[in-house]
């Protein structure tokens, strides 16, 4: 959604945004060595001569990292090149052990893809993907762990990354956010990364420039870094764009700079990088021959691609006859979509499955903080519960109670139902007994209902439901009640 101030500026200036996304690939070992990639281990415990850059060490590339990178490239519609070349990007930083990063420069793995996003007004736009290349991650620098020193943890150094560079095709913060969400969803569906900005497996650098409406040449762009969330990216872009517009309004010139986002202050600040220091002196990595990929193998990756989000959405609409809104909710993550689909297939009632997943399941996840992957009620169990409801074995109300019980303990729904007396009672004798009790307890309401106030049916039936702990069959009750009073 375009904010007020942003909208005012956008009337006079066009915002041009390009995004560079770094994604950690979910491989078991690092890109160039066999160290584990697990998160949260003791500092500098997942290191070896290679990722520590000990003298004499050499890189050897991880085959799965290549496969995941190719899978991501294909999913983004890129052309995967049969030959690509690794290059050294040379610079000094304490969390960059070799003093260079192994990356790709003028012969990247893939080029020329796109991501389709929806604008605020519902129209769609294709954001171009200029390139996707492979590289390795650096370690972590902790500036405030100990006083007066920076502490370095190299567990992350050498983890396989892909860098995805977009064309400068986005024109608002909303489009930038939509692009990021779309990329995240695609990569999740492709199972190549955890893509979590919070955990650091997805990082974003933004490039933004401003130009007067109608101008054809691009304005000077600045780079914005240090955002920790998608909203952070949107906010940072808005702030930096506003800054640039103010400079232009004052007749000034936007300087090429790197800006750092300060989320707590809601400000951008120039990074203190010296001019002329960005000379990476790229040259082809002599320790690695070119990466040669067989065309038929690339095709096989394409053929084995997991279902893309758009395809899943279309299929859900078609197969399960769901409306767009429901489909969007259910396909938000591949895990949720898988869960819903498992329930739907087991119950053959997709609508009920959709309602329960969007309703009770998502609510339970929210309140317990669980993920759908670790949710206590597995799809087959939920399907059993829905079957009980469909056959009238338990009422809808009772089913909700059973659901709560199932969240707490892994029992079958019918066992819970019978133990707690939640099995729907449709037996006329029992229903009749309860009705009698309620009529005796609520004589005025009964009299008024008998006198023709049909809406009191709800009160009377509700009282029986309460008395029966939800197990009374409300439809049969209604019939009996009507018969009793000849209404």
């Amino acid at each position, binding site marked *: 959604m375009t904010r007020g101030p942003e909208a005012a500026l956008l009337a006079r200036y066009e915002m041009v945004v390009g995004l560079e996304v770094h994604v950690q690939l979910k*491989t078991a070992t690092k890109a160039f060595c066999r160290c584990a990639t697990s998160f949260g281990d003791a500092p500098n415990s997942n290191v*070896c001569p290679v990722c520590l850059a000990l003298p004499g060490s050499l890189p050897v*590339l991880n085959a799965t*990292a290549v496969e995941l990178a190719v899978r991501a490239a294909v999913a983004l519609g890129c052309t995967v090149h049969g030959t690509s070349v690794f290059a050294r990007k040379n610079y000094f*930083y304490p969390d960059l052990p070799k003093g260079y990063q192994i990356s790709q420069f003028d012969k990247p793995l893939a080029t020329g893809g796109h991501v389709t996003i929806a604008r605020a007004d519902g129209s769609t736009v294709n954001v171009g993907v200029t390139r996707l290349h492979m590289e390795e991650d650096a370690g972590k620098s902790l500036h405030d762990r100990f006083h007066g*020193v920076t502490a*370095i943890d190299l567990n992350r150094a050498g983890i396989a990354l892909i860098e995805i560079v977009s064309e400068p095709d986005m024109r608002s913060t909303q489009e930038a956010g939509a692009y990021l969400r779309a990329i995240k969803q695609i990569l999740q569906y492709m199972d190549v990364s955890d893509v979590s900005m919070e955990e650091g497996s997805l990082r974003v650098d933004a490039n933004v420039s401003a130009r007067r409406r109608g101008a054809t040449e691009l304005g000077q762009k600045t780079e914005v870094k240090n955002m920790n969330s998608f909203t952070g990216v949107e906010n940072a872009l808005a702030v930096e764009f506003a800054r640039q517009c103010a400079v232009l309004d004052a007749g000034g010139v936007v300087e090429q700079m790197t800006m750092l986002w300060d989320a707590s202050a809601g400000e951008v600040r120039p990074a203190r990088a010296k001019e002329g220091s960005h000379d990476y*002196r790229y040259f*082809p990595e002599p320790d690695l021959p*070119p990466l040669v990929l067989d065309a038929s193998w690339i095709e096989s990756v394409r053929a084995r691609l997991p279902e893309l989000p758009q395809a899943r959405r279309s299929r859900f609409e078609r197969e399960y006859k769901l409306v767009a809104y429901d489909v969007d909710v259910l396909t938000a993550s591949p895990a949720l979509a898988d869960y819903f689909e498992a329930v739907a297939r087991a119950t053959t009632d997709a609508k009920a499955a959709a309602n329960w997943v969007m309703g009770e399941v998502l609510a339970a996840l929210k309140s317990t903080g669980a993920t759908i992957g670790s949710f206590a009620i597995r799809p087959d169990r939920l399907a059993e519960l829905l079957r009980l409801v469909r056959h009238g074995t338990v009422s809808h109300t009772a089913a909700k109670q059973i659901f709560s019980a199932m969240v707490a303990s892994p029992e079958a729904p019918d066992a819970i139902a019978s133990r707690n007396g939640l099995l729907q009672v449709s037996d006329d004798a029992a229903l009749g007994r309860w009705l009698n009790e309620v009529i005796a307890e609520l004589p005025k309401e009964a009299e008024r209902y008998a006198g023709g106030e049909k809406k009191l049916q709800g009160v009377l039936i509700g009282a029986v439901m309460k008395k029966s702990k939800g197990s009374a069959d409300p439809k049969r009750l209604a019939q009996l009640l009507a018969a009793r009073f000849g209404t």
Partner: protein
Amino acid sequence: MASQVSVKDVRHVAMLARLGVTDARAAEIARELNTILEHMDALGRVDTNGVSEYSAFDGAGQRLRPDEGPAIRMSGDADSFAPAAREGLLLVPRLATHEDVGE
């Protein structure tokens, strides 16, 4: 191809390479580099039209490895040979946060 390496160039290169260099030494290095580079000028006259850059590799492509351990064993932890370490972390003089951001 000939270029005159100036003292300013030497200081810039020294900065890129993180080699501290005194003014006197910088002038000396500029002279040495110029002498050496003069000998390289002849390369500029070699016809390399259509010649690709040398590759040591025969075109078979890179040999990949499976995504599994165990990691290379070292006889000693990372902090056992680090000049400065604490609680398993390596220590360096403190950067003002984001100073020299990734160059």
